[in-house]
């Protein structure tokens, strides 16, 4: 902590217990009140866009999936749509429905994770444990579909790599029934619990004019009454057939963002039920060419945190000339200083958490270290360990067939 002109400048981060990932904030305090906040990001920049330029489109799909561990499916959905549209591919309806189901499951696990983190930040650890317990059921479903709790590897160019068997469809339906009951309870809790309302109301305010000025997206914008849901504004995939009931709120604060996310989870449960009920028969993918015709494209999808924009340019080869990803958090950082200024230092962690920041931190290789030293595991070994781990939890993903891509 340093003192400047009688004001304290408090550095928070890049490593700090209240931050889940590295980021740096320089908070100038007037007593307990935040007078000025400077945000420094970039600690997790991994050069993924440069990496994409020297790899094939198929290899890039795996890089893009690792932009973010929480909304990996949203990123691959956007990237696949870029390539599919440039190649003129028509994705089968069944694949679009499966993409939609996985996307809404992803929104559920992301919002449940956020609700737990937010509760933890205000000292409401009971709610944190409840929501993360419920999130496990969603992650189990995602693991049953794709073989992984995150980075499910479901999307591919021209469709999806995993189909849904009748038993799994029934199980997802049962999980949705159980989850809906819990979500209704959380919604009721948010409406009546005085501690929750007291800690979340009136802080981190971003009014509609501020949302427009800072171009905020997702639940942050919708909590200020601005409907910017891409599934509604520019319906894509299954959302061309199944309408989304948009959620907005007018509190313009952290409490409003909480209400929006809880309501969105209830809407995701409804959407998943409709998609499971109306899942069409048919193929789950069409063959995609290795080379992508020359051109450029700009695609957006609705990730759990908001609008996710992908730009791809091809010169006609099997590698992209340029890939640019604008994740929703990148849009929401701009208003952060404004949201912090004027509020108490004790509210800083929950105001930061309220945009659900994602710093993207998943690596591609795993080094396991123990007292005997460290070792690198090959893919087959990692897969075997993963299967054994899930079998010990009562889930057997060993029957999932890996799709083989023709060489040459």
């Amino acid at each position, binding site marked *: 902590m340093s003192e400047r002109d009688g004001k304290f400048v408090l550095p928070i981060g890049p490593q700090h217990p209240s931050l889940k990932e590295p980021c740096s904030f320089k908070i100038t305090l007037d007593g307990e009140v935040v007078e000025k906040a400077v945000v*420094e990001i970039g600690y997790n*920049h991994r050069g993924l866009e*440069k990496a994409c330029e*020297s790899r094939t489109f198929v290899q890039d799909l795996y890089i893009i999936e690792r932009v973010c561990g929480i909304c990996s499916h949203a990123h691959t959905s956007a990237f696949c749509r870029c390539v599919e549209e440039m190649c003129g591919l028509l994705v089968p309806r069944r694949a679009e429905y499966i993409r939609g189901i996985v996307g809404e499951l992803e929104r559920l696990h992301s919002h449940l994770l956020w609700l737990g983190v937010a509760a933890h930040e205000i000292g409401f650890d009971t709610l944190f444990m409840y929501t993360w317990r419920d999130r496990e059921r969603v992650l189990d479903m995602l693991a049953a579909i794709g073989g992984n709790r995150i980075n499910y590897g479901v999307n591919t160019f021209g469709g999806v790599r995993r189909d849904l068997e009748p038993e799994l469809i029934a199980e997802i339906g049962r999980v949705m029934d159980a989850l809906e009951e819990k979500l209704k309870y959380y919604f009721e809790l948010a409406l009546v619990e005085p501690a929750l309302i007291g800690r979340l109301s009136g802080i981190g305010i971003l009014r509609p004019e501020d949302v427009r000025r*800072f171009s905020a997206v997702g639940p942050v914008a919708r909590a200020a009454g601005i409907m910017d849901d891409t599934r509604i*504004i520019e319906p894509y995939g299954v959302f061309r057939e199944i309408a989304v009931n948009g959620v907005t709120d007018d509190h313009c604060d952290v409490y409003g963002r909480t209400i929006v996310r809880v309501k969105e989870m209830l809407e995701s449960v409804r959407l998943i039920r409709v998609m499971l009920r109306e899942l069409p028969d048919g193929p789950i993918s069409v063959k995609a060419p290795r080379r992508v015709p020359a051109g450029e494209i700009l695609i957006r999808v609705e990730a759990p945190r908001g609008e996710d924009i992908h730009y791809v340019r091809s010169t006609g080869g099997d590698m992209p000339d340029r890939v640019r990803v604008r994740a929703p958090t990148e849009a929401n950082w701009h208003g952060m200083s404004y949201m912090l200024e004027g509020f108490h230092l004790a509210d800083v962690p929950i105001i930061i958490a309220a945009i659900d920041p994602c710093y993207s931190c998943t690596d591609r290789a795993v080094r396991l270290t123990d007292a005997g030293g460290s070792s690198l595991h090959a893919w087959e070994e990692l897969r075997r360990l993963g299967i054994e781990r899930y079998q010990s939890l009562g889930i057997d993903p060993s029957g999932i067939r890996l799709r083989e891509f023709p060489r040459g």
Partner: protein
Amino acid sequence: MTEQETINRLNAQFPFARAVSPRRMRVFTDFMPPRQFEAVLRFARDELGYGKGEHIVGTDEGEDLGFSYIVSNGETLLVIREKVPKADPRVRSQYALYPSLLMHERELVDLFGADMRELPPGPSYPLPDGWPKGEYPLRKEWNPAYFNKNTMRYEPPEGGGEAKT
């Protein structure tokens, strides 16, 4: 305002913009010199209602650098583009028009070497402290194989080495 109305207004006011719509809810202009670009961008915000700064895509155009500013009216995405020579990449920050594009403009400085005038002071983004001056990783000639992470120096072999792409 629909994409067709946007195209009609833009092309009537600025024929050099050559705006087209490659798909629904998208409008792309041609690359323009900075002065023309600034006039089009201001017109789009003030007259056409494109007040939301979405993001910026920097591209290596061979001898030039291209900067595509993506703005929105809440529905349609409008891409307005400027081009400057790599040898003299002077452009003006559009922070005053679109505060939300500040971080993206800092990215153009770090990764492409844009000489961004009137950019407000602040931390660089996204390259780390100690990154060597004059090294711009998203230019095509920059090859990550020649970057020594331990010394933080770019060390291509004699003759410049190969571009990565």
